[in-house]
């Protein structure tokens, strides 16, 4: 179905009773767990931000050194996961985008993945001209760190790329570009 707003789909987290196992991944310990009755088969993965942290699989809450560490482990877990898992994520736009990409790559659908509203206002933006990624872009425009183009951030999130589209203001509409070059 056409999603006219084309934004990263986020909303308040609530446990999905249709799931049989639930995994909540969060970028920081202070981010709250989904609302509703806490299912028995529920695990929380938290980015601890401490290089000495190592996940302990016997605990209901496991800590990871970094978001990259958690996401790496998430991809591995989903590759061996069985049907019935529901995935919940809380963090900033970059973290949520990465979780969505990981879930999509594992064959999960939007009905099985729930993303909390990003904790910071900034968005992840790709320059569509040189593919440079920019994290935590709070404004509607920026100068591309890769090619220097003045980009305007469109309200179009690419689920495949995992970022919003940054388009050079000077790029002419299709059909109006100069010909003969």
């Amino acid at each position, binding site marked *: 179905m056409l999603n006219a707003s084309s934004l990263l789909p986020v909303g308040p987290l609530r446990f999905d009773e*249709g*799931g*049989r*196992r639930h995994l909540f991944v969060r970028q920081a310990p202070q981010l709250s767990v989904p609302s509703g009755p806490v299912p028995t088969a529920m695990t929380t993965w938290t980015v601890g931000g401490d290089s000495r942290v190592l996940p302990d699989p016997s605990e209901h809450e496991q800590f990871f050194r970094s978001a990259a560490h958690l996401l790496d482990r998430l991809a591995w877990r*989903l590759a*061996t*996961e*069985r*049907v*019935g*898992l*529901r995935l919940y994520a809380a963090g900033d736009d970059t973290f949520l985008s990465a979780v969505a990409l990981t879930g999509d790559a*594992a*064959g*999960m*659908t*939007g*009905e*099985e993945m729930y993303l909390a509203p990003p904790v910071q206002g900034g968005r992840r933006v790709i320059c569509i001209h040189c593919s440079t990624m920019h994290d935590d872009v709070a404004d509607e425009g920026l100068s591309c760190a890769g090619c220097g183009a003045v980009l305007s951030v469109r309200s179009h999130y690419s689920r495949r790329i995992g970022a919003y589209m940054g388009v050079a203001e000077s790029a002419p509409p299709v059909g109006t570009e100069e010909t003969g070059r």
Partner: protein
Amino acid sequence: MMMPRSTGYPAVIADVAPVTPTLRRFDIRATAQPFPPVSAGSHGVFAFGDAVRTWKNPYSIVARSDDGSMLRIIVRLAQGSRGGSAFLHGQGRPGLEITVLGIANLFPVVRKARRHILLSAGVGITPFLSYMDAMDGMGLAYCLHHYCRPEERQAFHALLADRDPGRVVLHDDPDTGRLSEILAAEPVSSRLSMCGPDGFMNWVGAVARDVGFSPGKIHSERFSAPEGGAAFRVDLARSGLSVSVGPEDTLLDALEAAGIEAPCLCRGGACGACRVAVLSGVPDHRDHVLAEAERAAGDCILTCVSRARTATLTLDL
């Protein structure tokens, strides 16, 4: 519809073989132009009959030859139906003329999924015979679980003899615990597709949801063999005609026989293309398309399978 309804693809039965006592396989050869390409999960509407009457019935297309000269279907001898399948089982011999009126796909393979679990019962295996050919070609992982009666096991075993035995499992005992184990062992990426009688699909759907399949990953094809019922009359508000629908006719057949260009596609209550507004009278809904609220409102009807609870219906035709 890929062809105008009035023409279609002329063809004849080329070969007939029994599959089980109630299932019969027909190979149908095109006699004019070749059949169009057919994607896995497609059905055709097949017109056939004798001097007395014509049936137009939808059947899943099991296979199409590479050169488009042949289509294969499997027809179940339906109890309490309007006699089309009984005619094919009784009179469907090589040489019988059959017109393929149109080919459509309401049950395509979800190509983006890498793993598929297919569940069928009885004649519901037919779309999956084409699925398995397509999935073999696309390199998709799948496993078919087919449910049959104990006395049919040998026949289905023979039907599936040339398939990878690691991808095909026959069951002659609908054991909920066993099905639950099978489904719960599927990877998170798995999509479930099912085809069979309503009771079978309700059972599989409930077990699938119970092990945590999300609704969007459960795909099904439900066809209704249109059943007969009490005769009724439809008054057509636009054309001013009145059409009688006999106990053995479908409303759609009766409209077509009266020369009305009524919309239609699947002729099995599965697609919704034949929906027509009801201006008065009470429809007897028998389709798989309308939502509960639409049924209760009673202001529309799917002419291919549904009938009337009142002696007359007035339609916006």
